[in-house]
């Protein structure tokens, strides 16, 4: 258990969203969309004294200006938290700024191209069907616990070359880092330490028994001077791949199934017109973008006419940008065949998600296989849908009933 002394005081409930926003408030967790509308109407950039001072850009334009401005906005901290301890556990390239960013990112890009994902796709299709086999006869399931969670866990484990059965460990660490860690530094540090120890063991093993998985790829990588990466760099990138590769896609698949469960017209259309899947996946990514990033303001500047001061964090909400009606007509509606869609679910600028092709493949396959086996489904009125808090948003309980409503 964590030392309670490290836990910051409970956050008081928010009453003034425009001047005192809090992305960990239960109202935000449950339904953030009306809050973002209110903030956007007030200003392109709002501020809260919480989290030791934090801005939030509310428009697509303001989010884009910050994402492109690596001079004033650093990625050295990518989660808005109650505390700002000294930076120890880096995770390049997500926590890197120029000029270190580009070489660190280029090491990770080749294993994640669309062609590389095509090779992984049959395994992911098999994973989806193995999972569905386990619950389809029950006529119902918690889709978050039984399905959407396991698809990315097993896929990334397969890529990294670590046992798919270690998935529960990965999920515990991610919960400690992305959710508990916002308010509890010990929970975060415990998770980072356990995760680092786990991967250090796998690296040691591969020094004597080389493999052809992603861990070995990183161990064999050379920098521009021909030197191998420091173990700390390899460990940091492995932490990143595990943290960033799991509950993000878990959330995206979950939100997609949640939408389809409560929107029969879209569900029936996708079953009848499977060729719409590529557009549908992009629209579901836009409407229910799971990932909110962060930056730290290094130098005073102006964003969309609003002054922004050093020492504050920035809650970089790609999900809010994707709901901006100035950028997307009918932004609040899911238009399942939306044609023009420059959504920013995977970020904008140099930090574009390295796993975006993996996430898209997993989402497509997970939705396709589900619809093939379970074309009719709905939310179970006897259960409750719950959502994760903070940095990554998606359903964590998603009770479903299969078949047509009688």
């Amino acid at each position, binding site marked *: 258990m964590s030392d309670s002394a490290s836990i910051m005081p409970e956050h008081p409930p928010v009453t003034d969203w425009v001047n005192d926003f809090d992305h960990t408030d239960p109202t935000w967790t449950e339904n953030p969309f009306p809050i973002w509308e209110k903030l956007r109407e007030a200003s392109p950039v709002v501020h809260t004294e919480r989290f030791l001072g934090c801005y939030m850009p509310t428009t697509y334009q303001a989010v884009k200006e910050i994402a492109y401005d690596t001079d004033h906005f650093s990625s050295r901290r990518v989660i808005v938290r109650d505390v700002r301890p000294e930076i120890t556990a880096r995770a390049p390239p997500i926590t890197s700024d120029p000029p270190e960013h580009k070489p660190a990112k*280029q090491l990770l*890009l*080749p294993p*994640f*191209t*669309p*062609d590389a994902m095509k090779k992984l796709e049959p395994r992911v299709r098999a994973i989806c069907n193995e999972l569905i086999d386990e619950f389809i006869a029950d006529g119902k399931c918690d889709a978050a616990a039984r399905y959407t969670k396991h698809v990315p866990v097993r896929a990334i484990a397969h890529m990294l070359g670590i046992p798919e059965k270690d998935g529960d460990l990965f999920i515990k660490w991610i919960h400690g880092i992305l959710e508990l860690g916002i308010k509890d530094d010990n929970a975060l540090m415990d998770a980072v330490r356990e995760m680092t120890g786990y991967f250090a063991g796998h690296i040691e093993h591969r020094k004597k028994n080389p493999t052809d998985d992603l861990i070995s790829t990183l161990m064999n990588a050379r920098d521009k001077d021909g030197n191998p990466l420091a173990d700390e760099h390899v460990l940091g990138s492995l932490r990143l791949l595990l943290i960033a590769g799991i509950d993000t896609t878990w959330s995206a698949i979950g939100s997609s199934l949640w939408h389809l469960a409560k929107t029969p017209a879209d569900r029936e259309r996708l079953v009848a017109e499977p060729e719409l899947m*590529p557009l549908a996946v*992009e629209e579901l990514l836009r409407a229910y973008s799971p990932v909110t990033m962060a930056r730290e303001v290094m130098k005073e500047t102006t964003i969309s006419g609003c002054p922004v001061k050093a020492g504050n964090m920035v809650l970089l909400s790609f999900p809010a940008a994707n709901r901006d009606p100035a950028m997307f007509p009918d932004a609040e509606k899911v238009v399942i065949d939306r*044609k*023009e*869609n*420059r*959504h*920013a679910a*995977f970020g*904008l*600028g*140099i930090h*574009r998600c390295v796993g*975006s*092709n993996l996430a*898209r493949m997993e989402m497509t396959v997970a939705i396709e296989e589900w619809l093939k086996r379970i074309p009719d489904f709905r939310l179970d009125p006897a259960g409750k849908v719950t959502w994760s808090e903070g940095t990554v948003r998606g359903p964590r309980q998603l009770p479903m009933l299969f078949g047509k409503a009688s």
Partner: protein
Amino acid sequence: MAGKLKIRVDQDKCQGHARCKSLAPELFDLDEFGNAHEVGDGSVPAGLEDKAWLAQTNCPEIAIEVTEE
């Protein structure tokens, strides 16, 4: 008068979202890092004009230029 279309990917702007390759695989290719470039000299064959515009209007980085010759 609608002329022949030509496309070009701005290499400084492309971040490898690969939306163009997904929507118009005949017109775009990806390099080993997943960053996009136009196929050949970027001339859009007749019949693929809609795909060129679709790719252009879905690029999050606004990295694709479409010009009419």
